[in-house]
């Protein structure tokens, strides 16, 4: 038995450069209030995103920025309001209008945030991993199944003896590895990982990130890595996109992006990450200024961009570098976000900073003098 991949052969020319998933103008609105309410919340407001083969793309942003909604739209757990999702060049939102085909679901798998909630507590690990093998027709005999299960456990660095355990008998890190193994069982081309490490202990996180990197390198799987942790995105992802209030504000090769952050929101976000090695921290006034620039921009430093003229209405992208391996773009600084989410997010930080006009001083000014 074979499962036909979606029709249309991949275009011969430029096939290598063609991303597995190409998202264009993705919009997702949620209705607020009752059935007849006309109030909408625009969680995702026109996002373009490419997932190239064998590459990890990070989507970073704060809660409410819409990053998880994008993953859920790609996994077809949510129906996008507008836009296109091309999978191998085929717009699946048109060909599979109402719900995703099994073939699509086989090729796009998701790893969830909560390793405690995403595994059925009534089933052993063996069952959790055997089901996708059966559903997607990757096994024909019991012996083959067993062999596949052992392979899967090996692939995610788990002892096959754990197959007979129930989820509650595993640690958080082990459970999340089972979650990854379950996704792998379907032999996907794309893995959507939504905050896969945020509920894990710090030392276990690195192990999971290394696993994702290995799967990318060894199996050429494309991954969307969604996180609020910029340092982990920098570590694991080839390219990083910064999301704010339903829109992407900056993107590029991860190291370049974080070393040369350009957009005020990206700079605000980076400044907020605790980092004892930071050489120069922003003071309260600088942070206030950045918040102001995000909400009420006045000027764009890239006004001389001849290809993409600045605009406060359209989210124009300015390319800062197109050099391969150092790609970096930023949304025009002058663009004013219309979303109420933007105001709310910034207001929250501003209110937390409320009245903090004093100069920041070292933490230890009040420490008692050392005893001699």
């Amino acid at each position, binding site marked *: 038995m074979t499962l036909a991949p979606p029709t249309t052969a991949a275009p011969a020319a430029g096939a290598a450069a063609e991303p597995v998933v190409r998202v264009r103008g993705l919009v997702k609105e949620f209705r607020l209030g009752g059935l007849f309410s006309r109030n909408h919340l625009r969680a995702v407001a026109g996002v373009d995103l490419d997932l190239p083969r064998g590459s990890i793309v990070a989507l970073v942003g704060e809660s409410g920025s819409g990053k998880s909604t994008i993953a859920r739209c790609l996994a077809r757990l949510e129906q996008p309001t507008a836009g296109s999702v091309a999978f191998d060049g085929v717009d699946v939102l048109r060909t599979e209008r109402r719900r995703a085909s099994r073939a699509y679901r086989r090729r796009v798998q998701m790893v969830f945030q909560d390793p405690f909630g995403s595994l059925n507590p009534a089933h052993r690990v063996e069952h959790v991993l055997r089901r996708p093998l059966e559903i997607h027709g990757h096994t024909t005999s019991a012996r083959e199944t067993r062999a596949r299960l052992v392979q899967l456990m090996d692939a995610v660095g788990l002892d096959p003896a754990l197959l007979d355990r129930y989820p509650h008998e595993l640690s958080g890190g082990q459970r999340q590895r089972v979650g990854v193994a379950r996704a792998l069982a379907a032999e996907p081309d794309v893995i959507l990982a939504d905050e896969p490490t945020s509920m894990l202990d710090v030392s*276990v996180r*690195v192990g999971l990130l290394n696993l994702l990197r290995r799967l990318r390198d060894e199996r050429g799987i494309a991954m969307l890595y969604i996180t609020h942790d910029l340092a982990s995105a920098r570590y694991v992802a080839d390219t990083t996109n910064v999301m704010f209030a339903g829109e992407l504000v900056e993107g590029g090769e991860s190291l370049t992006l974080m070393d040369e952050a350009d957009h005020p929101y990206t700079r605000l976000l980076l400044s*907020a990450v605790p980092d004892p090695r930071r050489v120069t921290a922003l003071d309260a006034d600088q942070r206030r200024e950045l918040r102001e620039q995000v909400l009420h921009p006045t000027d764009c430093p890239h006004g001389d961009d001849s290809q993409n003229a600045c605009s406060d209405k359209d989210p124009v992208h300015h390319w800062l570098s197109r050099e391969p391996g150092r790609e970096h773009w930023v949304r025009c600084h002058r663009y004013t976000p219309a979303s109420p989410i933007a105001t709310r997010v910034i207001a*929250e930080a501003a209110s937390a*900073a*409320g009245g903090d006009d004093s100069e920041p001083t070292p933490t230890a000014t009040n*420490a008692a003098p050392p005893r001699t």
Partner: protein
Amino acid sequence: MSAPLLEVENLTVEYAVGDRPVVAVRDVSFAIGEGEVFGLAGESGCGKSTIAMAVLRLLKEPARVTSGSIRFAGEDVLGMGEAALRRYRWRRAAMVFQSAMNSLNPVLTIGEQLGDVFTTHEGATRREARTRSAELLELVGIDASRLRSYPHQLSGGMRQRVVIAMASALRPALLVMDEPTTALDVVVQQEIMAQIQRLQRERGFSVLFITHDMSLMVELSDRIAVMYAGRVVELGAAGRVFDQPEHPYTKSLMSAFPPLHGPRVELVGLADRVRAAGGMSDGCGFHLVCPSDRSDCSTSIPDLREFESGHWVARSGSTGAVRAATTTPVPATNGAGQ
């Protein structure tokens, strides 16, 4: 030369589960000076929250303090009676809980809940309580009109600040904060931490700061203690421990964080190493992969020994009597340069 505010000495806490008690905290000693920010670092299950609960005498069955002492300004906390305990909690030592955002009562307004602190502990009149609650809210940058709001009407960051205001209402000398900003976004967390620092500077209280976020802890603390499996394995000035950790566990923990600067270097997860070496069998579980020879760690984690002035590391050895960790609060600023 003032005595330390809080002295925890040889504290052992057990959870009596079944017939074999689980030792959550074993023989832990540290002291916090007046006005000092002391960080307790470690992963979940290492016993750091248990210590926080013990300090405020909040441990409930099946947890028991089986040995050791806790002294607050020279007074024995473990021996306090009901009345003394009522005076101690909130007025002298207060706590901001891990899920503080959800620890507010949903059916009472912010004003009622803040006011309660003053009416209950200080016998204030309702009018007095109102005025002081308003002052308190403004202290954390929230408009006094919010006194009439219910918790669900405030954002997560605001609720968190209300809880911090509530904990500092009676000007306690010690504020215990257990993961105070874990559920918040970084941009908000940054502002709240800045606010806590400002408050701490103005009022000079001591802080016992518990978090799994090492970077945040190092930024804020004067000194830190790193815990592993119920024991403190390293204690010293925050910058010093971060820059040059001595204990192999601390080294692994510090290197488990991908950096925000510099080239990408391959990191090794700590649990991976332990697993690769054969799993947690006995002892600390870490001795198996220790780079240095620690054959005597295979049965237990050694006691702390002073490695250099003010810097304590759990390592074995025959010399040097083990005593409570230094009572000297070392300011972070000159700690790193020693």
